[in-house]
């Protein structure tokens, strides 16, 4: 029936054969669109995410340290520090063939992921200082012990970059081999829309936190959706357009699952994050103090790579680049790659541009 349907294009006088073939192909695609749409609606399948095998090395409250083993051919292991809250970390290990973690382990890097976890109301007292001076040092220590290595490279993504940089700058005794900042903001004077919306003249963070206690996941979602209000429209339009392609559909299902799972922020963490970073811009100015130690980014002297995304509206390139200007490393590089904040590290483009660049840079220095 299906084949007969696709050859049913009528004999139209004057219709060129190639046009007839293309109309048949379009008819086939429309049939597949209806088929896949009905499957998505009637028999939705939970997408399988996080395919790369891992083991839990350490647990502290809600946070976990995961190890993704490799053949260890690339040298120093890698500690990956993502954003705290906001979204789940399985975006970095989304699906087979579409996983940054899978790629790096195949390149021979032992990969350690800091999974901050999902914080509850009992964690509303957690501060940025706690994350930097209590959680991260333990995670780094456990990762080093587990790997048996004498040195470790660190990669911070998004908020994880300034957090990990604060940890490394206040703990110079940590045997840091290389440091990578991927789409992590350092100069919050150029942070774009969030910087404008969180301006202290318009946003009273104290009142916000004192009233709500924590920042609910729905509020976090609203904030990020507002950055690109037309995103949902274009996403659904592209879905309809590519609905005939089963690979696209499985990729969409996985990414859509992640894009709708937002996480809450602990209240005190959000307060300090907004006040010290977005409003005060203390990190790049050298005014940030953590557990009595001033955070001086110039104490980072290992090779540093900063990766900005050209279409990033969460951490625009101008707020990522300043890192390489303040560290005291001789070997420092800034690159700007195609993509947005998420597509820099997850997606088809990432596997072409970002992953090989990061792996190659690390491999030559490990």
């Amino acid at each position, binding site marked *: 029936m299906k084949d007969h349907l696709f050859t049913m294009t009528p004999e139209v006088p004057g219709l060129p054969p190639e046009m007839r073939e*293309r109309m048949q192909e379009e008819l086939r695609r429309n049939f597949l669109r209806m088929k896949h749409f009905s499957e998505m609606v009637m028999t939705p399948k939970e997408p399988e995410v996080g395919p790369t095998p891992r083991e839990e090395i350490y647990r502290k409250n809600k946070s976990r340290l995961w190890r993704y083993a490799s053949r260890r051919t690339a040298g120093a292991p890698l500690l990956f520090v993502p954003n705290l809250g906001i979204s789940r970390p399985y975006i970095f290990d989304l699906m087979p063939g579409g996983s940054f973690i899978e790629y790096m382990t195949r390149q021979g890097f032992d990969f350690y992921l800091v999974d901050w976890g999902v914080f*509850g109301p009992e*964690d509303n*007292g957690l501060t940025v200082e706690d994350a930097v001076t209590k959680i991260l040092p333990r995670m780094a220590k456990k990762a080093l012990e587990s790997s048996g290595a004498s040195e470790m490279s660190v990669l911070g993504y998004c908020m994880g970059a300034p957090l990990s940089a604060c940890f490394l700058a206040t703990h110079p005794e940590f045997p840091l081999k290389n440091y990578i900042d991927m789409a992590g903001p350092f100069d919050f004077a150029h942070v774009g829309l969030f910087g404008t919306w969180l301006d202290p003249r318009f946003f009273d963070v104290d009142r916000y936190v004192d*009233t709500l206690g924590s920042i609910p996941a729905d509020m976090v979602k609203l904030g990020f959706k507002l950055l690109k209000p*037309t995103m949902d429209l274009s996403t659904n*339009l592209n879905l309809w357009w590519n609905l005939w392609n089963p690979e696209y559909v499985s990729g969409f299902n996985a990414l859509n699952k992640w894009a709708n799972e937002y996480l809450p922020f602990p209240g005190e963490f959000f307060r300090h994050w907004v006040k010290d970073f977005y409003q005060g811009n203390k990190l790049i100015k050298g005014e940030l103090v953590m557990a009595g130690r001033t955070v001086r980014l110039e104490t980072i002297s290992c090779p540093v790579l900063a990766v900005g995304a050209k279409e990033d509206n969460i951490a625009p390139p101008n707020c990522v680049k300043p890192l390489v200007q303040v560290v005291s490393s001789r070997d420092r590089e800034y690159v700007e790659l195609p993509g947005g904040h998420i597509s820099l590290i997850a997606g088809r483009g990432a596997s072409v541009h970002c992953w090989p660049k990061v792996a190659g840079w690390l491999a030559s220095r490990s």
Partner: protein
Amino acid sequence: MAENPSQQLFDLWKKQAEDAGQAWLKMLGQQGQPVDPQAFWRPFMDQGMAAWSKVMTQGSASPDLMAQWKQFIDQWIAAWAKVLEQAMSTEAFAQAMGKQLESFLSVAAPAKKAAEQQIESALSALGVPSRGQVVAVASQIVQLEEKIEGLEDRLDTILKRLNELSSAVRAERV
């Protein structure tokens, strides 16, 4: 008698919708002028209709037409996104959003408190632990975990020093 929180929320929503409309017009420099609903949308409509006319004059429906239509919609969405981004990057928008948030918090605080009190009373009557009590227990567990880790760190430091001492003693004997 205290105001009904539901009525307060509805009034807030209604005021927010009105304020949002005024703020939008103010951002576009139309405050004080007669409202012209077409003023904002006319450039998009003109552009869209011109592109649509061009597409329709190209001939009968074909797969190419579908691709062109998709491209046209993509460009239209991109244009909307750009205009919206420009509007949202203004201080006026940030100010309006901040005011809306403050209004929300003004109503949310007493509503949240009232709801929490009612739930706590109900749970207490049923003999079930309240959220606050569960959170308090969880916080204590977090603090205990922190203390245990502190003890672990001290033990590690002591063991490290003992190892250093014994290495130094062995080195002296040799």
